[in-house]
Structures are given as structure tokens and as C-alpha cells.
């Protein structure tokens, strides 16, 4: 008790001298309960996005940041950890968030454990984890297509790289591994049809693998070669319009792939209408360079200093493309050099551009008007995933 009294004395000593109560506030502020921990809605509003903070200077301490880009303040709503070169994929229908990650028993050394951690959207607490065998989870600067869902979000598929490629399929209900599918020469996961996935291959083709009800690989369909990897490769992350993925190439050609069927169907391609003023030319640039709104308009982050090797340099404008009319609808001049773009799936979409300094700039996607900056959201805001339903 003596110590408590002493602490109280200390507290009393630090009080300011004036103790007069202002007449306008007859009652003091109410006492507040402890402990008190915030909760989120189980289903997030469509103005929220997941920002993957890759954390360049502390790769083991990456995290996903949940951000409301439409609010005037209180924009950062929560964070969940994502270890070294991990992946984050939300499932709105299951009210869960999945994180593919790797732990060591002594943080950077010792025994390796790969897992998919299951997070509850409402409490942001881990509900469980699925241990992935073999220590083969692929580690690279995060791409959203490294961890994807299929089978009505009943299964997760995670990409392995050893440097041999494979995909591990896990059941999210039983939290058990269902199967592992070898994927020689192909990379990443683009869900197809009801149950299965496609993958982009080093020979320029796309391979589609259907999964049976037990998760075992069934028919494999390989497309014609369409990805000119040598001279004009596609960025790996498409903008999804329904089940159609819109990929953009280093040189600004747009390519649609229909993932609605059991096998991916490679559709047509058209160039972003050329614009003058580039030095030497306008090209897509950044990390996640293309996004789509609910109406199907595409937003491409463009770099005026386009050339060989410029593809990760970010951009200064977002170009709005109507892929049906094949027209450039609008050029949005960004306030700041940006590295990734994502459109919200609101009826009136917002366009979010992430900056190298960790802040997000938010634009009215319809008018291109700057709306706000959400400052210092992340150390390295490398990918963004808008809430989708």
C-alpha cells in the first residue's frame, strides 16, 4: 500500500496548479471502462481497402493495414501481421482474412513453419492456422495472386516456389491441406470456374488446372502462347472485372482473359491509345499498376519516363480506360509520384494511389479530383486490395 500511496503522491504533484472548475461544465467527463478494445464490422464497407505494408527495412515485420479511404479521419482501422514476404487475401463471404506466412522458432533462424493464418474480420484475432508442409511457400515481393480462393471460398490456394513451382490447396473449413499440384514452368494462381485455377507460364502460355471435389488436379488445358515475355511481358496482377482479368503489358497493351470457365480463355488485346509527352514514352509503371472499378473501367498507373527497366518506377498519372470502347476516357494527374493503384468497388468509386513515403492519395475516380491524403499508412505500401463482394 505504501507504494501505491507514493505513486498517488507523485501523480498529485504533477497536477497543474489551477483547480477551478469551469462553470459551463458542471459534471466532469465520464469515467471510461477498461479494458476496451475496438472491434470492426464483420463485413467491411466497400470504401475499405487492405494495404500490404511490405516494410522494406524490416521485411519480417510486414503487416496488412485496413484503411477506410472514404472517411475524413480515423482512416486506419486496424493492422494484422504478415511475416517475411507473405500474402494477404480477404474473404468477405467468410468474414475471414487469410495470411500466408513463414515463421522461424527464433524469428530469423531455427525451425521453419509455413502457415496460412486465419483472421477474424470483426475482432482481428487469429482464429486458427493451417500448417503448410515442406517449407516451400513462395517468397517474393508480394503479389495478390500468390494466395487465392476457389470453390466458393471453401478452399485457399497458395503458390510455392523452391525454385520448383507448385500450388498447395487447403480446405478452410477443416483447416487441412487438401492437395498439392505441381506447376512446372508456371507461376501464380488465377482462380477459374467453380473450382480450379490458371497460371502464367514461362513459355508465354497460360495453363488451367481444374480441381475435382477432393481438390485433386483434373484436366489441364494449355493456351496458345500469348505473353511476349521477352519484349512486352504482362504485369502479373490483373484488374478483375467480374471473372475477366485485364492484364496490362510493360508497353501498355491490354489483354483480357476470361476465368469464368473451367479453363482460362485468352481474349483479345488492344493498346492503350498512345499519348505524346513521354520521354521516351508513356508506359505503365509501378508495382500494382492496374485496377478496375465496379463499372468495368480500368485505371492504369502511367510513367512518362517509360523504357526498358522502367516498369517498377511508379507513375505520375492514372489513365482511365474503357476496355469495351477501347478508349482512353481520362488522364488523372496524380499529386505525387505513386507506386500502386486500386479502385474501390463503391458505386461512386475512389481511386487510391500509394506513395513511396507510405501515404495514400485518394481521388474521385469519376472526376479525377483529388479528395484526400491518408498519411503514413505504411512503411512500404506495395499492394492494395479493395473490399469486394
Amino acid at each position, binding site marked *: 500500500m505504501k507504494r*501505491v500511496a507514493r505513486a498517488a503522491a507523485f501523480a498529485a504533484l504533477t497536477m497543474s496548479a489551477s483547480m477551478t472548475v469551469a462553470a459551463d461544465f458542471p459534471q466532469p467527463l465520464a469515467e471510461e471502462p477498461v479494458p476496451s478494445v475496438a472491434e470492426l464490422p464483420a463485413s467491411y464497407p466497400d470504401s475499405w481497402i487492405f494495404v500490404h505494408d511490405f516494410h522494406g527495412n524490416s521485411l519480417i515485420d510486414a503487416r496488412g493495414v485496413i484503411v477506410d479511404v472514404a472517411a475524413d479521419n480515423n482512416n486506419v482501422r486496424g493492422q494484422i501481421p504478415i511475416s517475411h514476404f507473405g500474402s494477404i487475401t480477404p474473404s468477405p463471404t467468410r468474414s475471414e482474412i487469410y495470411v500466408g506466412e513463414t515463421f522461424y522458432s527464433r524469428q530469423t533462424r531455427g525451425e521453419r513453419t509455413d502457415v496460412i493464418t486465419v483472421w477474424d474480420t470483426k475482432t482481428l484475432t487469429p482464429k486458427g492456422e493451417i500448417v503448410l508442409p515442406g517449407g516451400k511457400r513462395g517468397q517474393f515481393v508480394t503479389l495478390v495472386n500468390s494466395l487465392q480462393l476457389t470453390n466458393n471460398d471453401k478452399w485457399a490456394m497458395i503458390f510455392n516456389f523452391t525454385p520448383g513451382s507448385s500450388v498447395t490447396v487447403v480446405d478452410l473449413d477443416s483447416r487441412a491441406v487438401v492437395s498439392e499440384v505441381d506447376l512446372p514452368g508456371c507461376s501464380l494462381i488465377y482462380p477459374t470456374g467453380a473450382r480450379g485455377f490458371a497460371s502464367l507460364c514461362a513459355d508465354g502460355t497460360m495453363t488451367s488446372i481444374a480441381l475435382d471435389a477432393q481438390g485433386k488436379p483434373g484436366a489441364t488445358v494449355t493456351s496458345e502462347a500469348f505473353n511476349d515475355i521477352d519484349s512486352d511481358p504482362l504485369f502479373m496482377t490483373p484488374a478483375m472485372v467480374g471473372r475477366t482479368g485485364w492484364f496490362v503489358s510493360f508497353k501498355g497493351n491490354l489483354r483480357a482473359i476470361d476465368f469464368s470457365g473451367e479453363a482460362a480463355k485468352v481474349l483479345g488485346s488492344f493498346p492503350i491509345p498512345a499519348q505524346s509527352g513521354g520521354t521516351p514514352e508513356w508506359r505503365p509503371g509501378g508495382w500494382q499498376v492496374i485496377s478496375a472499378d465496379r463499372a468495368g473501367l480500368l485505371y492504369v498507373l502511367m510513367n512518362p519516363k517509360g523504357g526498358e527497366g522502367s516498369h517498377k518506377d511508379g507513375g505520375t498519372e492514372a489513365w482511365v480506360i474503357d476496355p469495351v470502347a477501347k478508349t482512353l476516357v481520362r488522364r488523372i494527374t496524380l499529386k505525387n509520384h505513386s507506386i500502386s493503384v486500386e479502385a474501390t468497388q463503391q458505386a461512386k468509386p475512389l481511386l487510391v494511389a500509394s506513395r513511396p513515403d507510405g501515404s495514400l492519395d485518394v481521388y474521385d475516380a469519376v472526376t479525377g479530383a483529388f479528395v484526400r491524403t491518408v498519411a503514413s499508412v505504411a512503411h512500404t505500401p506495395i499492394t492494395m486490395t479493395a473490399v469486394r463482394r
Partner: protein
Amino acid sequence: MSGLDKFSEKMTRRVARATSRRSLLTLIGGALTGAAVIPVLPVSRAQAQGHGGGGGADPIAPQTTGNPQDPGDQTKCDYWRYCAIDGFLCSCCGGSASTCPPGTEMSPITWIGTCMNPADNRAYIISYNDCCGRSACGRCSCNRNEGDRPMVRPQANNDINWCLGTASAIYNCSTAVILGVALEQK
């Protein structure tokens, strides 16, 4: 000193009500209470809001309670309740001045400070509960050292990680919860 005795008794009761039995026992039985954590001031100044690299001339958008009796911006270090806070402000991390961000655990062992509310001119007892179990939030670093004393007096030291008695001792951010009015005036 009888005023102070009464005050400390009241505070002890308040703390007893507000915290778990385990932490109460800790309070009574050993070295007491404690402040939030911290990036040390000069360091945190340099890093404040500058996530990972020179960032942000841009400010965090202000968050006010809307209550004229509780004035100020809870994302700023000069908010009245933060008079003895140390660490990342939970208001910037998904919590609020009195609530931990989702998924963290509020530390039951806290440093108690006393801050003047400039609106009603009352002195409030503020409990600086740390939020625990998640990596350093990284937003809105704030450190105020008036009254801070070295580790030799833990209950007055804000360098300690007060994530004690929580499932994980990893420090995320700090709150500033109103426990009550320090002294009642007639």
C-alpha cells in the same frame, strides 16, 4: 497529507475496480503500475509519422471527440490527455484515446498520470494502458517526459514496456483512459 491519503485511497479503489484481480494484486504486492512504452523522444521526433523513410509532410487527419468538454485532436501529441504518454497513439492505429486497436490486448498494468483538461479546468486521472500483442503500430509517435523519472522508479518511468500480464508482451500502441477526477472541489 490527509487529503493525499484520501486521494490515494480513492485512486486505489478506482484502480481496483478498473483492473483485473491479478493486476490489483500486483499493484498492492510489488513495484507498481507504469507508463507506456517509447521510442525515446529525440529518436521518435525524428521518426514521428515518417513511416519508413522521410515520409509524410502530410499530417494525419484530425480526430476530435466533438464534445466541447474534451477538446483537441487525439492524433496529436499535445492532446490534453497525453500529458504523460509515451509511444504510438492508438488513435492513429485503429483504436482511440481510450480504446485499443482491434486484435490487440489492453494491458491491465498501467501508469497513472494526472492531466488538466483545459475545457473544464479539472484534473483527471489518466490511465495509460498499453495495447499489446501486435508489432509497433508505427503511426503518431508521441513522447512527453515531464515527471518522467529513470528506471530506478518504475512507476514514474515511461521507458518500460508495460505490456505485462498480457498474452503477448509485444508492444503496439498506447491509450489515455479517463479513470476519474483527481480531486473533487466543493
